[in-house]
């Protein structure tokens, strides 16, 4: 930062270089076997892979330069007392032994069996390896002789599979206590470095395992005029690797643990139809829909429930509890607004007309942590999309809708609206413009006077919002110029107009109910999200 910036001026010039180098080695050895024995076909693979991921990082920053001219190119010019350097290196390794056999009988009956043993450096010696078998069978029913008479059925396949997979996507060295750079102390009138324990060791860490059973059907009717597939799955993840809060009197806030199991069950259905097929006019529709149910089945014997925090200043935000969806939003339910004529004799401290009225779920006359309740979850009950594609002569018209139902999201913009850093902060317009006043004694939004008079109950039924929506995702109209008007080198040409995100139907207050900048699909938090872009495109495609 040059001296014309505020921080640069204070430091008399600051230069920072950060370098990172990630490498990934893979050694693979496999034996392949493939043979035909008349009606039998067998493919088999046996092999072993070794993978190593290595990261090196270097960091240096220097302050107090004689001139801005050298940028970061001559850090030796800085004041040697104001130089900070750091570096680190870490690696993890994965070794796998794999065996797989594919068997095909008459091209009608298909069987696959796989077994793999994976070893990961992220687990302790006794838990390093996990064994993950899987198998699948398929039956092409329409190849059977008895199906020959059913001419309407052009394709029919039944599938079933079962398998276990492992997950080791955690940080390195979590199963031992390692020591890293601690905070700086001030001793002898100077800053001195320190070391401190980096994590609370968990020597028991092991592979997370997912066992999935899947039944499916693929079908085609009337020469694929209608085709589609349907799948039912039952997926149980056990020994989940989760960073679980631990009592902070240990000096640590959390520890990585294998806990309990969750069950995802769902049904997926997709359908392709060719509604009209004539030489001038074509209309195709694709529709897919999925239903999902997520439930925490078991948290083991020692834990009843786990409450976890959100990012930034969100505070405690979600709960993991048997029988409920994973990371269900957990906070205070808003009943309404305190009105002028209400009875304040037993009101919680700090309330006045226009304050938020929280539900006293346990009826003890106070609003405490005990009153928190489930406010929704991050797993949509239903997700669907439909696309229509219509051709008429040289025109093509395509539009698609998508939607989700039964999903919630924690809206941090709402938290900033109700619990602002200070009164100058931006607020979302809808609650603020419709706020409670003596003249507008609404029961919907509070007065925004003394917003912190009941503390920071940031996760509540205002801030956890229904994020269901229906959206017109794309509309596109194009026209292919007929060959006759094209000449020379131009093989084809079309002009088109396209609009994306034309409208969204939702109850969500905020730019976009579909965002999830929190990067965890199972814990939806609208935090510093970029607003949704509505785009209009006009274009010409030329082919030469």
């Amino acid at each position, binding site marked *: 930062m040059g001296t014309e910036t505020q921080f640069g001026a204070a430091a008399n010039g600051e230069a920072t270089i950060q370098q990172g180098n990630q490498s990934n080695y893979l050694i693979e050895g496999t034996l392949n076997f493939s043979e035909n024995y008349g009606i039998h076909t067998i493919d*088999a693979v*046996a092999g072993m892979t070794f993978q190593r991921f290595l990261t090196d990082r270097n960091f240096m920053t220097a302050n107090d330069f004689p001139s801005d001219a050298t940028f970061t190119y001559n850090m030796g010019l800085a004041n040697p007392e104001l130089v900070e350097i750091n570096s680190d290196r870490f690696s993890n390794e994965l070794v796998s032994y794999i065996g797989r056999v594919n068997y095909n009988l008459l091209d009608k009956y298909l069987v696959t069996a796989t077994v793999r043993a994976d070893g990961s450096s992220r687990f302790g010696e006794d838990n390093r390896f996990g064994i993950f078998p899987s198998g699948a069978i398929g039956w092409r029913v329409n190849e059977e002789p008895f199906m020959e008479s059913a001419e309407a059925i052009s394709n029919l396949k039944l599938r079933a599979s079962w398998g276990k997979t492992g997950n080791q996507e955690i940080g390195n060295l979590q199963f031992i206590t390692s020591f890293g750079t601690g905070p700086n*102390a001030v001793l002898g009138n100077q800053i001195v470095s320190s070391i*401190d324990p980096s994590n609370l060791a968990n020597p028991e860490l092991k592979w997370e395992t997912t066992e999935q059973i899947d039944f499916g059907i693929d079908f085609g009717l009337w020469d694929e005029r209608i085709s589609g597939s349907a799948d039912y799955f039952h997926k149980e993840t056990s020994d989940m690797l989760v960073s679980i809060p631990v*009592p902070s009197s240990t000096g640590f806030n959390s520890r990585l643990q294998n806990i309990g199991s969750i069950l995802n069950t769902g049904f997926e259905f997709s359908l392709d139809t060719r509604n009209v097929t004539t030489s001038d006019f074509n209309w195709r529709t694709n529709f897919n829909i999925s239903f999902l149910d997520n439930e925490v089945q078991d948290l083991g014997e020692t834990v009843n429930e786990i409450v976890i925090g959100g990012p930034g200043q969100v505070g405690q935000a979600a709960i993991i509890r048997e029988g409920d969806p994973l990371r269900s939003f957990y906070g205070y339910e808003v009943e309404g607004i305190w009105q002028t004529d209400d009875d304040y004799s037993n009101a919680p*401290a700090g309330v006045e007309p226009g304050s938020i009225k929280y539900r006293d779920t346990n009826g003890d006359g106070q609003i405490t942590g005990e009153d928190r309740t489930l406010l929704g979850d991050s797993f949509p009950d239903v997700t669907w999309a439909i696309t229509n594609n219509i051709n008429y002569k040289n025109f093509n018209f395509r539009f698609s809708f998508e939607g989700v139902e039964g999903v919630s999201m924690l809206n941090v913009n709402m938290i900033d609206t109700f619990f602002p850093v200070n009164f100058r902060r931006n607020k979302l317009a809808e609650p603020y413009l419709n706020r409670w006043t003596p003249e507008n004694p609404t029961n919907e939004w509070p007065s925004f006077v003394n917003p912190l008079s009941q*503390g*920071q109950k940031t996760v509540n039924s205002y801030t956890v919002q229904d994020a269901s929506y229906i959206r017109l995702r794309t509309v596109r109209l194009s026209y292919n110029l007929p060959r006759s008007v094209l000449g020379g080198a131009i093989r084809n040409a079309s002009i088109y107009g396209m609009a994306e995100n034309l409208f969204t139907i939702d109850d969500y207050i905020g730019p976009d109910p579909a965002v999830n900048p929190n990067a965890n699909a199972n814990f939806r938090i609208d935090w510093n999200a970029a607003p949704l872009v509505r785009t209009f495109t006009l274009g010409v495609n030329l082919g030469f």
Partner: protein
Amino acid sequence: MEKLMKFAKKLFLVILFAPLLVLLSCENMVEPEVYSQLDPTNVMSSEKGIKGTLNAAYAEANHNQWNGHSILNMNEMTTDTYWDTGGGENRILIQMINFTWGPDTDWFNSLLWNQPYRAIRNANTVLDNIDQATVSDELKNQYIAEARFIRALSYYRLYTWFGPVPLRTSTEGELEIPRAPESELLSFIETEFQEAIPDLPEVNQVEEYGRAHKSAARGYLTLFYLNTKQWQDASDMAQTIIDNGHFQLVEDYSTMFHKDGELNSEFIWANYAELPAGNIWINGSFPPGFRRDPQTGLTWTNSMNNWATQYRIYDSFYNTFDQNDERLVLILEEYENQDGEMVSLRDNDDYRALKYFDPNASANNHGTDRPTIRYAEILLARAEALNELNGPNQESIDLINEIRDRAELNDVSLADFANKEELRDQILAERGWEFYAERKRRIDLIRMGKFVEQAQNRGATTAQDFHRRYPIPQPAMDANPQLEQNPGY
């Protein structure tokens, strides 16, 4: 048949090679390698490892930089001395000023709860491992005493904020433990400080300035006795420090709070700060566009910051000062702004405390120590304890007058005080003038039974007796079902 033979041959090859693959590989390939992190098997067996971890305990117990300023404000803003508007921290401070804080108020968890427990963890790590480490016996005993000092200090702070808390004296053991009985925690704190004293060096023999010494342990014991109303012990311990003669009052009050005066005869223990990190509190105390204090010549430079948040001294507190009080030198009544204009801060609950200034400050950081125990407090502690034991007495009056003399105020006399209560009120006022912005006021008001009253008087009508303890933070409650919340929250 021929095909079957071929198949058998191939199968045989597979069976032959499969073990070979296993042999070629080696399970050591997934033995984790530790590069930049320090390996626990050797780090804690060396003196360097022990000392490095002890440094981390010091670091967590040293409230400087962001944490130091936040913890100071959270405590002082509950009192009748100063308040805040604007800036990012106002979200928290408004709750402290108005007594609307709760278990969800986020700094309780990160600063008041987690940080002392990290200091305790680091101290416990030292204590658990030092016996196996190659450290000379003499140093070993000293390091043990230092670790116990920091652990006791951290539990003392936790106690003054939350009341009794879980007592963890080793890194081993159950994760979930309940709050210790009050008597057990208090006796632990007292014993730890006392047992540390013999192996701690005298203040003039410390290895490095800022490491624990006998007087620091005695100083904290004095405060501990005072705040647990063990008056005889408090007055005795204060007398021990006075008799040892290591400390005396600095002649000019204001110099202690500036960078060039921070090494002085009065600081017994402090939250130490050095550039480029430092004490960042004064940035919120500078008024808008502040350039210069005409009274002292203290001048803001372009290398410094001036925050949006504004720490403002109440008129009602400012007006209790005698206008001749030397200590007003560090309180800003009017200032010259960047345009060279004079701006008055009078009569608007807007005076500013300019403690902890460093003329070489860089950005947020002023390299100025903030005292946590000064010799002046030892004198006033003894004065207070003797008054509680015996009512107004000449020795208490003399001790108070030592402080007043330094501030160039007239003496008070024994005849001015009809009873214990009147002298107690005087001591509270004296402490207010002496220790403003030094994180003393909350605990003083609580000890003297004025905490709730002062809040009510200045309009924080939600204040009740239960507010004398802070709530156990919600994340701590949620992570440990054995914890019981303080009543009222």
